[in-house]
């Protein structure tokens, strides 16, 4: 029942349902790439504190757009600093965002590596079906930086709007190679083969988290932020998923 009410509130249907009641729970807006890890961290957090967590997962820019349009939430975690900066610029963030994880790009190929790819320098081959993210989304911006730094001109057959679409095309063999995050590669397991890119770890995507100005439950909200940054179990969950510690 509690869950239903909180869900309705997250959907903006019952904005007042969980106001003025600190032990009712908190709402966390988090980047799509954090889906699995945050569900797990949320469970641990609830076990420790008794505070229920409701998540909304979406692309970082979409989350910021929802917040700008009045969606109620206590905490925001994005997959890049640009979107967190945009949220801060709109006065949505309370205090300073803190970095809690890094994610870096790797090359994935379908199992068996039909295109015989072994590194970034192989991806300039026109006959190879390479899929990357469009530069408008965080993973695409990272792809541009890394290929420019390596001096490799990738000629993609498709530039997807999300990293999961890139992974999807590699997974089902529609592409010979793709650039995705290390966490995505890990999640795909045996369905893909993973190749590290020289220099990618030195130029990662940074994941910031922050309490929101509009938080209904700022106390538990800040606790959740601290839990993600400092709790040992949370750190382990992030590490197991392929995220690295921010430097």
């Amino acid at each position: 029942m509690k869950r239903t009410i909180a869900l309705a509130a997250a959907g903006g249907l019952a904005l007042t349902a969980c106001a003025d009641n600190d032990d009712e729970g908190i709402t966390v807006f988090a980047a799509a790439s954090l889906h699995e890890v945050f569900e797990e961290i949320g469970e641990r957090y609830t076990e420790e504190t008794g505070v229920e967590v409701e998540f909304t997962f979406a692309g970082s820019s979409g989350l910021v757009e929802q917040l700008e349009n009045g969606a109620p939430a206590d905490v925001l975690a994005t997959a890049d600093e640009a979107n967190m900066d945009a949220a801060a610029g709109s006065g949505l963030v309370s205090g300073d965002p803190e970095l809690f994880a890094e994610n870096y790009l790797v090359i994935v190929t379908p199992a068996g590596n039909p295109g015989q790819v072994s590194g970034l320098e192989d991806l300039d081959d026109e006959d190879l079906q390479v899929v990357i993210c469009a530069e408008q989304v965080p993973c695409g911006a990272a792809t541009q930086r890394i290929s420019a730094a390596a001096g490799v001109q990738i000629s993609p057959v498709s530039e997807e709007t999300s990293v999961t679409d890139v992974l999807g095309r590699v997974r089902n063999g529609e592409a010979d190679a793709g650039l995705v995050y290390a966490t995505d590669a890990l999640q795909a397991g045996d369905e893909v083969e993973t190749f590290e890119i020289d220099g990618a770890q030195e130029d990662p995507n940074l994941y910031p988290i922050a309490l929101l100005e509009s938080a209904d439950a700022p106390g538990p909200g800040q606790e959740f932020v601290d839990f993600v940054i400092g709790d040992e179990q949370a750190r382990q969950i992030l590490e197991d998923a392929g995220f690295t510690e921010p430097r």
Partner: protein
Amino acid sequence: MSAATRSLSRPPAWVLIPALLGATVILLPVTGMMTRLSWAELPALLTSPSSLAALRLSLWTAGTSTVLCLVLGVPLALVLAYARFRGVTVLRSLLLLPLVLPPVVGGLALLYTFGSQGMLSGALEFLGIRVAYTSIAVVLAMAFVSMPFLVISVETAVRGVDPEILEAATVDGAHRTAILRYMVLPLVGPGLVSGAVLAFARSLGEFGATLAFAGNRQGVTRTLPLEIYLQRETDPDAAVALSLLLIAVAILVISIAYGRSQRGG
């Protein structure tokens, strides 16, 4: 239709209220989006290379898809309209599937059929045809979702043709192809035009199937709706401007086509 029958069939006055609300449901959000438009930047946003590439691609692929729908859909509508075999109802329901399927499901269906790992991958490779990541895939996705609109529209029109006229022509010894060419097609003209317009409009707005199947590359597979979705990530103003462009093109096509069919019919 005489003035008398028109006043007899006129609905009661109260329907005006829900009718206005109905129009509001459609027009209000479009108006709301217009308020987000930055008119000063509009020309620059619409003439960027990526916008122009998307517009050009959308227009020619939607046009090709419409031609494909006409060439294949009209015969299909004729067969369905005159078919007497058992199972025609089931066949018709199956052919209208794209109307009820979420487009992304259509995209997956196309992917598992025409994709490089799909059912026909061997045959396509043998013929040296690559479909995935090409504009052919865009046209296929569009035709898949648009064909039913044309088929329904034309079939309904064909069923409305008085069989006695055609019978008389047959008795007079006219060839079936001649009857189709000189009697049926002119009689179903308005249905044909509205079907083609619907198919073009649906092709122009196609998003899900293209995204799931064709790919996303400027000038090749990134049509206007995909460009809008992408621009939304970094530049909402550009997304709104492109949406306006899409609306303008759709209204233009619909009004030209309907205007012409009204005069013609």
